[in-house]
């Protein structure tokens, strides 16, 4: 694997010169001729019928060019289940739902128009708690649930609020519980979070006279976005074009149709004029996506020696008013909720439940941070119960290569145990802490990238001056994909990175890619680019064979040249010029193309949750943390953090570190303080002032990052993904350290000072009462 020219090197990122000069364009930076500005009237009630919408006053404002309501643009969208109207029709299902929109020549006039619209509602009884929402007789949020088209990922239960039910069955849990030496049953819970990408959601849409819809957006799946629009409106795919701008962070919140839906509905009313919609920060909170809060009941059976023999888990995912990617989050995360352990008997029920809350969807980790908090907290509860060291307990049960997982897959590449040992070693695990208020905790995780979104194509153009253009629909969302793809192409074709340009996505020109999500781009698009480069090599050999009249088997591609066994040597530049007679001023190029998809990928059986290869690859990681708790305030101070991840193969060390550090920061916010506070469906803290994300002062400065390189047989140079994993084990590692420091176990994140202080007071009271 050695001897790479550029794979494994920290080359500076190719997108950054634009970003440090203010010349990287995001959607809100674009200005098009004749452009209008759109604003939205949003529901202020959680569940109600719309009796009347009066837009007459808005229409009288001279700057207002269009007003649109759901009944005038009566389409529904949804990647997995087509349940969400572009603007609501007849009924609202959450506070913040779009009821009407206005396009005007200025943002201010559009807002004035919105403010003048009067809506009469007839309130319906709302339901906010998912476990209440699935009780018989609960108010139905989608009466027409059974009529919605949906994918196999989503398993709705008609005439209920269950948007999807995921099941996994392995072995005989009840029998194993009877045979186990020790049973533990606990309930864990997480809270609503918001992604808080610093760029608010924005889109521009244009309906042109030819009948084509063009949307400018930072959506993380340009082709997926195209498909969702075309299927919703029953128009040919070729009538939709998505042009991508840089994305100012998304973390899962910029995948479906959010600002896009409003811009499209408005643009349909003002044909030939583009309409720009930029969400306010408050709308980002109320009307894009949140991270699902999950309630997780987990029963585990263990033998005295620490061997886990059975787990039964029920998960209740509060998905809010519409499905979005909720059913997928529920499926993928529930499936992995027994943890990265070899457990012979597993029973899992994951319920994705509609409520009258804002919509929940994927957020960095796709549900895994929530389930990892539960399974890794419970691992420590087992360790405590059996008086086994938490690290030892994990190593005893951890999956190894070729082990069969709960869903019946044989694991082909796993560096979990090494991650655990590295994270623990970095923290000097086993050495006692210095202070009585200090403690250490450890946690690990597993997460996959599904094969269902595996298809990825790329085009590489070799120009006749020796430079390269990579045409890709991968989105630069901040993760550095443009740089990594340049490195792959540079290594394959021996072209320096300075001569390689990576396109942004434009669905009219860049080929299909499922999406830039799930830590999948290095693996999938990396493979597609490598295969496209190899297609160029193959073509070059054919061309040389043709005009030198040599058999192909005597030719090979080496360091940017075609060489023959007889000593011929011809560079690609020379080849193109000779083949196309470029000396007379013509020119030409060599166009390589390729599609990569996971070999033998499968779904999961609807009844048992079993599948041989549901994952393109699995990611594993572990974290160990030392904290200090202030007994007076309950505040947690992180003293040292060690994070170790199996990345398969490091392509760019600097980029790998960037992903680890950013994910860790998000994990710390999730663990300690981030909570979207919702009362009766109303977000009480919809701003960056009242919803706290980590500042530089909230993060530990003593952080060590370790990489484990257990290559994946199908990964590009062995690489796996790494964008999400480091968010997942953080909360449990801190909760476990809190237990080590104080003896208190908190089973709900965030672990706020208030909760910790209350728990500490309870213990103190108990010890005083008993003294």
């Amino acid at each position, binding site marked *: 694997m050695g001897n790479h020219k550029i794979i494994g090197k920290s080359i*500076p*990122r190719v997108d950054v010169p634009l970003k440090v000069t203010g010349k990287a364009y995001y959607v809100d930076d674009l200005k098009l001729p004749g452009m209008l500005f759109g604003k939205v009237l949003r529901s202020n009630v959680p569940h109600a019928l719309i009796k009347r919408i009066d837009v007459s006053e808005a229409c009288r404002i001279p700057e207002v060019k269009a007003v649109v309501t759901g009944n005038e643009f009566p389409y529904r969208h949804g990647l997995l289940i087509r349940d969400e109207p572009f603007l609501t029709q007849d009924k609202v299902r959450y506070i913040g739902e779009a009821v009407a929109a206005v396009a005007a020549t200025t943002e201010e006039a559009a807002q004035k128009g919105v403010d003048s619209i009067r809506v009469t509602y007839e309130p319906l009884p709302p339901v906010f708690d998912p476990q209440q929402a699935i009780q018989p007789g609960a108010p139905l949020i989608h009466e027409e649930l059974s009529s919605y088209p949906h994918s196999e990922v989503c398993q709705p239960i008609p005439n209920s609020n269950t948007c999807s039910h995921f099941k996994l069955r392995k072995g005989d849990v009840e029998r194993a519980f009877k045979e186990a030496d020790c049973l533990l049953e606990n309930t864990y819970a997480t809270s609503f979070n918001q992604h808080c990408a610093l760029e608010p959601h924005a889109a521009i849409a244009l309906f042109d006279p030819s009948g084509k819809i063009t949307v400018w957006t930072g959506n993380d799946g340009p082709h997926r976005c195209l498909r969702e629009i075309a299927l919703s409106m029953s128009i040919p795919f070729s009538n939709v074009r998505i042009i991508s701008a840089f994305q100012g962070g998304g973390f899962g919140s910029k995948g479906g149709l959010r600002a896009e839906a409003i811009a499209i509905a408005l643009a349909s009313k003002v044909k030939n004029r583009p309409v720009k919609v930029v969400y306010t920060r408050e709308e980002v909170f109320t009307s894009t996506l949140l991270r699902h809060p999950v309630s997780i009941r987990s029963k585990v059976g263990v033998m005295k020696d620490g061997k886990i023999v059975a787990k039964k888990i029920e998960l209740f995912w509060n998905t809010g008013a519409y499905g979005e990617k909720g059913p997928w989050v529920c499926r993928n995360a529930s499936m992995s909720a027994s943890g990265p352990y070899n457990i012979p008997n597993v029973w899992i029920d994951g319920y994705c439940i509609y409520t009258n809350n804002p919509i929940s969807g994927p957020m960095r980790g796709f549900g895994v941070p929530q389930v990892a908090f539960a399974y890794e907290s419970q691992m420590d509860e087992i360790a405590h119960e059996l008086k086994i060291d938490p690290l030892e307990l994990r190593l005893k049960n951890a999956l190894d290569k070729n082990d069969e997982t709960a869903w019946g897959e044989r694991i082909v590449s796993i560096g979990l145990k090494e991650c655990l040992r590295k994270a623990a070693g970095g923290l000097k695990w086993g050495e006692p802490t210095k202070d009585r208020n200090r403690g250490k905790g450890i946690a690990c995780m597993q997460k996959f990238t599904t094969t269902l979104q595996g298809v990825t194509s790329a085009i590489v153009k070799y120009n006749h001056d020796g430079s390269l253009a990579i045409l890709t629909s991968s989105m630069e969302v901040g993760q550095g994909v443009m740089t990594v793809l340049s490195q792959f192409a540079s290594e394959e074709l021996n072209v320096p990175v300075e001569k390689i340009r990576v396109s942004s996505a434009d669905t009219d020109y860049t080929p299909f890619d499922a999406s830039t999500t799930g830590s999948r781009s290095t693996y999938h698009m990396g493979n597609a680019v490598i295969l496209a480069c190899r297609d160029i090599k193959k073509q070059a050999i054919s061309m040389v064979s043709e005009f030198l009249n040599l058999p192909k088997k005597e030719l090979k591609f080496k360091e940017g040249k075609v060489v023959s066994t007889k000593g011929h040597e011809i560079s690609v530049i020379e080849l193109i010029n000779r083949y196309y007679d470029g000396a007379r001023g013509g020119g030409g190029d060599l166009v390589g193309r390729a599609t990569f998809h996971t070999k033998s990928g499968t779904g999961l059986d609807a009844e048992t949750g079993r599948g041989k290869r549901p994952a393109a690859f699995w990611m594993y990681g572990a974290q160990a943390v030392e904290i200090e708790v202030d007994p007076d305030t309950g505040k947690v101070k992180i003293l040292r953090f060690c994070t170790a991840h199996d990345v398969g193969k490091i392509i760019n060390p600097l980029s790998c570190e960037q992903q680890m550090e950013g994910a860790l920061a998000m994990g710390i916010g999730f663990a300690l303080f981030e909570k979207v506070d919702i009362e009766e469906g109303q977000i009480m803290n919809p701003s960056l002032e009242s919803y706290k994300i980590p500042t530089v002062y909230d993060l530990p400065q003593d952080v060590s990052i370790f990489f484990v390189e257990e290559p994946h047989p199908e990964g590009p140079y062995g690489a796996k993904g790494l964008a999400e994993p480091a968010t997942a084990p953080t909360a449990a590692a801190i909760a476990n350290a809190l237990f080590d420091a104080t003896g208190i176990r908190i089973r709900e994140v965030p672990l706020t000072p208030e909760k910790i202080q209350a728990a500490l007071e309870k213990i103190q009271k108990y010890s005083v009462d008993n003294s």
Partner: protein
Amino acid sequence: MKKRLISLNVNDETYEVFVNPNTTLLKVLREELELTGTKRGCDEGVCGTCTVLIDGRPVRSCLTLAIEAQDRKITTIEGLQQEGDLTPLQKAFLSEGAVQCGFCTPGMILTAKALLDENPSPTEEEVLRAISGNLCRCTGYYKIKKAIMKMAGG
């Protein structure tokens, strides 16, 4: 509300613009002068993506009225490069990996520039304090700190 004609000095160029008295500097920079490197992240002075320098000091342009910025020297991210070359601070953000999605970057760089112009060799604590009002959701701030410390000789 009556529009007024004001004169703004931005990146050493003078612009005359008609603005409402309640128009923010952010809006004028982005929409009138088309200097879109200054970002709108929250419009309430919390996130720091709209940071520009006025007379060398970092301010939130979303909380600053354009009319207040008259006759003062405004610097935006577009004003940093000299003859097409990145400044050493921009180069440090590039080489140290301080940039991911890039949305906080202009505000971060200008905040760092204000610090370094006033105090060329800040301590780590001074760097942390300087950037504590600028949010970043991608990086965890580690490499941003490192880039600024590199300029500080650290």
